[in-house]
C-alpha cells in the first residue's frame, strides 16, 4: 500500500516543480528575448520619457529579483499576471470570460479525435498488411504536413461555402447553435491529432492483438466480436488515455490557431488581440493558464490510469 502511494506523492511533487518552472518561464519569456517591451508597446519612434514611464508602469525599472517577487505576489493575491494594459481589467477575468467556448471546443475535438482514431486503428490492426491497413497507414504520412489553419480553410470552402452545411464562422446562440457552429472547428482540431493517434494506437492494438491472452481467449473459442470489444478495446483504453495526455498540449495550441480561422471569440482570439495590442500581462496570463492546465490535466490522466489499472495495485 505504501509503495503505491509513494508514487502519487512523487507525481504530485513533480507536477508542483513543473508548475514552479512554468511560472518562472512565463516571467522570463518576455525578458529573455531581444527587444524592449516598452518600445514595442509605444512604437519605434516614441520619446525616451514615454518609454521611461512605460517601464515604470510595467515595473521594468526595478531590479530583476524585485520584478520577480512582484510577479509572484500578484500571482498569489490576484491569481493572475496583473491588469491588462488596454482593458485595465484583470487578466483572470478576461480569460475566464473567453475560456468556456475554448474548453467546449477542446472537449469536442478530443472526443472526435478519440472515436475516429480508435476506429481507424482498430480497422488497420485487425486487417494488418491488407489493403485497408495500407490505406490507413498512408493517411498519417499525408496529413502530417497539413497546416491546421489550411485544413480549416478547405473545410470551410467545402462544407460551408459550397455545401452550406455549416456556418462560415462565428458562434451561434443557444446550446444547440453553439454545438452546431463548433462542429467544423472541432473536426479541424481533431484532424490534426488523428495522424499521431492512429499511428501509435495501431501499434498498441497490434501488440494487444498478438498477446498471449488474446490467443487464450481465441483458443477458448470466444466469438471474435467479444474478444475485440470486451477485451482488446478495454486494454487499449489506457494507452489511448495516456496518449491523449501527451498530446493535450498540442491540442490546445492547435485550438488557439483554429479559433482564428473560424472567427471564434475564445482564448485564441484574446491572444491575438493581445499580441496586436502588445498587451503583455494578458499574453503572459494566457501562457500561464494554458501551461498550468496542461500540467494538471496530465497529472489527472496519470492518476486516473493508475486508479483504473489493477496492475499498479500489487497483491491484496
Amino acid at each position: 500500500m505504501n509503495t503505491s502511494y509513494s508514487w502519487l506523492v512523487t507525481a504530485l511533487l513533480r507536477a508542483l516543480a513543473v508548475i514552479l518552472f512554468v511560472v518562472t518561464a512565463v516571467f522570463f519569456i518576455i525578458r529573455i528575448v531581444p527587444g524592449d517591451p516598452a518600445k514595442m508597446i509605444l512604437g519605434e519612434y516614441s520619446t525616451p520619457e514615454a518609454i521611461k514611464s512605460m517601464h515604470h508602469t510595467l515595473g521594468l525599472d526595478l531590479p530583476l529579483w524585485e520584478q520577480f517577487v512582484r510577479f509572484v505576489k500578484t500571482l498569489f493575491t490576484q491569481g493572475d499576471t496583473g491588469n491588462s494594459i488596454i482593458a485595465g481589467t484583470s487578466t483572470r477575468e478576461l480569460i475566464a470570460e473567453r475560456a468556456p467556448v475554448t474548453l467546449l471546443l477542446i472537449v469536442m475535438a478530443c472526443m472526435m479525435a478519440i472515436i475516429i482514431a480508435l476506429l481507424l486503428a482498430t480497422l488497420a490492426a485487425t486487417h494488418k498488411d491488407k489493403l485497408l491497413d495500407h490505406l490507413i497507414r498512408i493517411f498519417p504520412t499525408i496529413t502530417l504536413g497539413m497546416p491546421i489553419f489550411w485544413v480549416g480553410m478547405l473545410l470551410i470552402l467545402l462544407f460551408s461555402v459550397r455545401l452550406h452545411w455549416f456556418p462560415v464562422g462565428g458562434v451561434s446562440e443557444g446550446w444547440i447553435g453553439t454545438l452546431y457552429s463548433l462542429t467544423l472547428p472541432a473536426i479541424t482540431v481533431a484532424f490534426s491529432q488523428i495522424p499521431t493517434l492512429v499511428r501509435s494506437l495501431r501499434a498498441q492494438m497490434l501488440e494487444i492483438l498478438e498477446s498471449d491472452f488474446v490467443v487464450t481467449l481465441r483458443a477458448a473459442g470466444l466469438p471474435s466480436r467479444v474478444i475485440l470489444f470486451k477485451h482488446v478495446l478495454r486494454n487499449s483504453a489506457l494507452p489511448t488515455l495516456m496518449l491523449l495526455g501527451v498530446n493535450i498540449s498540442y491540442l490546445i495550441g492547435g485550438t488557439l490557431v483554429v479559433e482564428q480561422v473560424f472567427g471564434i471569440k475564445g482564448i485564441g482570439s484574446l491572444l491575438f488581440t493581445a499580441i496586436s495590442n502588445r498587451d503583455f500581462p494578458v499574453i503572459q496570463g494566457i501562457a500561464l493558464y494554458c501551461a498550468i492546465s496542461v500540467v494538471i490535466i496530465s497529472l489527472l490522466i496519470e492518476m486516473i490510469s493508475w486508479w483504473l489499472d489493477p496492475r499498479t495495485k500489487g497483491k491484496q
Partner: protein
Amino acid sequence: MKRIRTEPQLHQDGRQPSIIHRIWNTPSLLVGSLMFVVLIVLAVFIPYISPYHPSEQNLSAFLQPPSAEHWLGTDQLGRDLFTRLIYAARTDLSIMVLAEVVPFCTGVFLGMLAGYYGKWVDTVITLLTDTFIAFPFYLIVIIVAFASGAGERGIYITFMLVGWIVFARVVRGLSASFREQEWVASAQTLGLPGVRIILRHLLPNVLPQAVVVLMTDMVGLLVAIVTLGYLGIGIAPPTPDWGTMISDGQSFITTAWWLSAVPGFAVVYTGIALSLVGDGLADIWRKK
C-alpha cells in the same frame, strides 16, 4: 524499435549487405528523396525556369486562372503564382533546415547527458523538458516569435528555445537503455572516461533514431513557419512564403480558391517527402 546495436552486425553469410542494395530495397526512401530533390532542383533553378519575378506586379492581369502563360494563374496583384510558390520554397525550406541545426545538436547532446549520467543531471533536464512541454507548442511559438520580432530572426530564436525537446526526449530514452548494457558497465568499471564512451559509442548508437525524428520534426517546423506566416508574425512580406500566400488568398477563397489551396499543397508535398524519407531511413536502420 528502440533496439540498440552494440557492434556492427554482419549478415548471416558473413558480409554486410551493400548500402546501395539496402536503399534500393526501400521504396519509401527512394520516392521521398526523389520528391524532395525535385523540389530542391526547382527552387535552385527557378530564376532560369520562370520568366517572372516573384514580386513583379501586373495589375492588368490579376486573379487569372491557370493558363499556359501562368501555369498556376496569378494572384490579386497579378503576380505569377507558380514563380512565387517556388521562390517561397527557397525561403521556407532554407529556414526550415537552418532552424533545425541548433535544436538538433542541443537536443541530442542534452538527451545523451540525461540518459547516460542519470541522477540529478537527468532530473534537471527532465524537469526542463516537462516545463517546455507544458506550454502548448503553438502558444509558445506564437509568443516567442512575436516577442523576438517578426521575421526570420524570430523563427530561429523560437526554435532554439523549443525545438530541442523532441530530440532530448528520444535520445534520453535510448541513452538510458544503452547505459544498461553490460559492456558499458564493465567499460565504466575499467575506468574508460565517460566523454569517450559518449562520443565513440553512444553517439553512433543514438544518431540514426535522432535523424529519423529529425525528418518528422522538420515537417512540424515547416508547418510552424507557415503558420506564423499565416498569422502575420512570421516571414514578412514581400518575401514570398507559403504561409503569407495562404493568408493573402483567404479573402478570395470563394472566387479563386487555388490561391490558398496551392501553397498548402506545397507544404503537404514537402511533408510527404520528408516523412517518407524518415520512414525509409527507419526501415533501413531497423533491418541492419
